[in-house]
């Protein structure tokens, strides 16, 4: 089992390193992947075949984690079986008792077993067993359980992770101020579902009634908040404010304030045929106040492509809508149909029809999640921390003492046992022997 455990830890470490060095499809844009395919076709196809471009969902990784889970389970089973068998307690009862490997110290003839027990109690040792002139002391007994508790914690976290991978639901919406999210799974902009989940429908609707974004004097983001109203099937309306790090938990779903937000520009295009097409373009806020928000997108039901450069404040001194300005370029294929500046509310002739820049509203990113496995994770976390603490801060040690009478004096034989930090324990034993000799001579 030692070999298997070592091998599994090495394999998982190497796979993590592969995930750190090889570009992963999950965090790269489709354009990046396309470029990679074109520039290094061989390396791409080999890595893709081995699933190393998506290591953390690859068969190899999942199987390794599953094996780790199995091996840990077996290890824990063995540990629990062994746990309560203390070899020392057994040896204490033996009739023929060997003093091999024991250290000895000469003590005063009046020294009793009770004196020795008191001495060790003062040093933080507990009397575990006493058989005539033999005593077994132990300190930090809990330390013995450290590895068991620690590995049980890892097992629970893996269990939680497997459960999460199978059953989680996660969805992202860009909610425009004044608009309502239907709660239907298909209306999420991005969705991430567990292996055994088919969709993510929510049994209530969410309307964004207000959105605030605040900045420090230095221009860095200070705070975000979304005020929403939820409406469920029983027509109950509730108002909530969601801020970062404080998700709203409502009807089994957690709603998080995402750090993605920005402005939505709405247009109405009246075609020469009289047909009207309304469109909203949601642009991400720019990281710097003096940089524009950019977006390139198709205009639905037309062949036009809108290339936008938007400043909430054309003086470039604010993220708020002070003097908004849009630099717009409209293309149809390779042909530029329009290039110029538009302000909200403005309207113009366009290709025989009319284009109106209707309005600008805030949009806020909201993340909806259903994260199963919470209890596994938190219990696992507590066990891992407690176990590691017991292993390294409370190393268990045991001392067996045998008090013999010899020529009117007493001789105390001692033997210590510990699993960790032998050199320190040996020093401690020597100190104890010296102190015993001083106190009982």
């Amino acid at each position, binding site marked *: 089992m030692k070999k298997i455990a070592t091998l599994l830890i090495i394999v998982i470490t190497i796979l993590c390193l592969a995930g*750190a060095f090889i570009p992963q499809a999950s965090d790269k844009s489709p354009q990046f992947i396309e470029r990679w395919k074109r520039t290094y076709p061989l390396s791409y196809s080999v890595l893709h075949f081995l699933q190393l471009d998506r290591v953390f969902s690859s068969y190899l990784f999942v199987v390794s984690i599953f094996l780790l889970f199995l091996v840990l389970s077996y290890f824990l089973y063995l540990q629990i079986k062994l746990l309560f068998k203390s070899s020392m307690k057994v040896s204490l009862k033996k009739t023929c008792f060997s003093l091999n490997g024991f250290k000895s110290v000469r003590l005063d003839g009046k020294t009793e077993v009770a004196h020795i027990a008191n001495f060790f109690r003062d040093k933080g040792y507990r009397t575990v067993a006493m058989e005539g002139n033999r005593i077994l002391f132990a300190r930090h007994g809990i330390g013995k359980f450290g590895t068991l508790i620690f590995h049980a914690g890892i097992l629970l976290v893996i269990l939680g992770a497997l459960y999460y991978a199978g059953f989680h639901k996660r969805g992202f919406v860009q909610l425009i101020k004044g608009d309502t999210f239907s709660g239907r799974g298909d209306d999420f902009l991005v969705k991430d579902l567990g292996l055994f989940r088919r969709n993510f429908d929510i049994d209530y609707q969410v309307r964004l009634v207000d959105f605030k974004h605040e900045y420090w004097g230095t221009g860095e*983001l200070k705070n975000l908040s979304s005020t929403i109203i939820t409406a469920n099937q029983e027509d109950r309306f509730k108002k909530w404010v969601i801020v970062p790090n404080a998700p709203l938990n409502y009807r089994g779903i957690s709603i*998080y304030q995402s750090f993605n937000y920005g402005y939505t520009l709405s247009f109405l295009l009246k075609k020469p045929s009289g047909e009207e097409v309304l469109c909203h373009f949601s642009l991400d806020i720019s990281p710097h106040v003096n940089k524009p928000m950019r977006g390139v997108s198709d205009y639905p039901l037309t062949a036009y492509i809108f290339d936008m450069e938007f400043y909430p404040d054309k003086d470039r001194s604010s993220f708020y809508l002070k003097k908004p300005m849009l630099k717009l370029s409209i293309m149809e294929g390779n042909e530029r149909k329009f290039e110029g500046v538009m302000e909200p509310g403005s309207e113009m002739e366009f290709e025989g029809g009319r284009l109106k820049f209707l309005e600008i509203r805030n949009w806020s990113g909201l993340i909806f*999640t259903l994260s199963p496995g919470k209890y596994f994770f938190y219990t696992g976390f507590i066990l891992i921390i407690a176990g590691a603490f017991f292993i390294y801060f409370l190393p268990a040690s045991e001392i067996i003492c045998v008090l013999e009478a010899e020529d009117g004096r007493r001789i105390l034989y001692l033997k210590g046992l510990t699993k960790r930090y032998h050199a320190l324990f040996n020093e401690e034993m020597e100190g104890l022997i010296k102190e015993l000799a001083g106190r009982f001579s």
Partner: protein
Amino acid sequence: MQDLSLLKYETIFHWIAVLLYISSSILFMYGLTFKKEKGLNSGWIVSLSGLIPHSIALGIRWFVQGHGPYMIKYEVLSSNAWICIVMFLVISRKISRLKAAGGIVVAVSFIAMTAGLFTNPDIKMLPPSLRSIWLLIHVLFNKLATASLLIAFSASVLYLLKEGKGEAQLFSLSTYMLDLYNYRFAGIGFFFWTITIIAGAIWANQSWGRYWGWDPVETWSLVTWLLLGFYLHMRVFYRWSGRKAAWAMVLCFSVSVLTIFIIPMVVESLHTQYFQ
């Protein structure tokens, strides 16, 4: 944010601390090389006196910006150095023979602080994602882990030096004890690193609605933890000790430095937000 002009005093105190730490390192090196207990003791006292201006410098920054020193490289390097020196001073006060590790702990700390001086010290305010108690726990335990691993690393380097020169040479601390301190502080570092990862996962869940996202720094942090776990297993399973264990610890410490300081600088990560 308070009066920014106070920051000029911060720079002065920071420099005084760097100079005192340099002097302390020289004294430690002298003590180590010539087996002079006096050198180690003086080095210890000088590093303690360096800690005073260093604490004042960090205190000023904290006061001015209104949040702890964990946002930009300059303050991250300085606060990490501070924790390393505090931990070293506290531990070597209790375990006097560990003063020998000062030659490496204080030297690495002042190198980190000096490196910080070449980075932009401008204040960066806290974004909303970083306003969480879990962030504080995450950062604090990561610094404690770094300090513990640095002590384990120092014990390993001293082990390798002493083994090369012979037991009678250099400082009086035996290779046997150095190996033990390597193990002891690797275990403590592993414990702190474990809390760092767990606090980070809880904070990520609070902020982004997921415990783990395979962000590059997250992945590297897991690699460091697994590597430490591997090393600790080797000590128990195959009785690794001495030279092998010392080299393994040097590797673990190097990977931890890569994770904390190098990776956030070279790759785009959630963690680059607070190491710019």
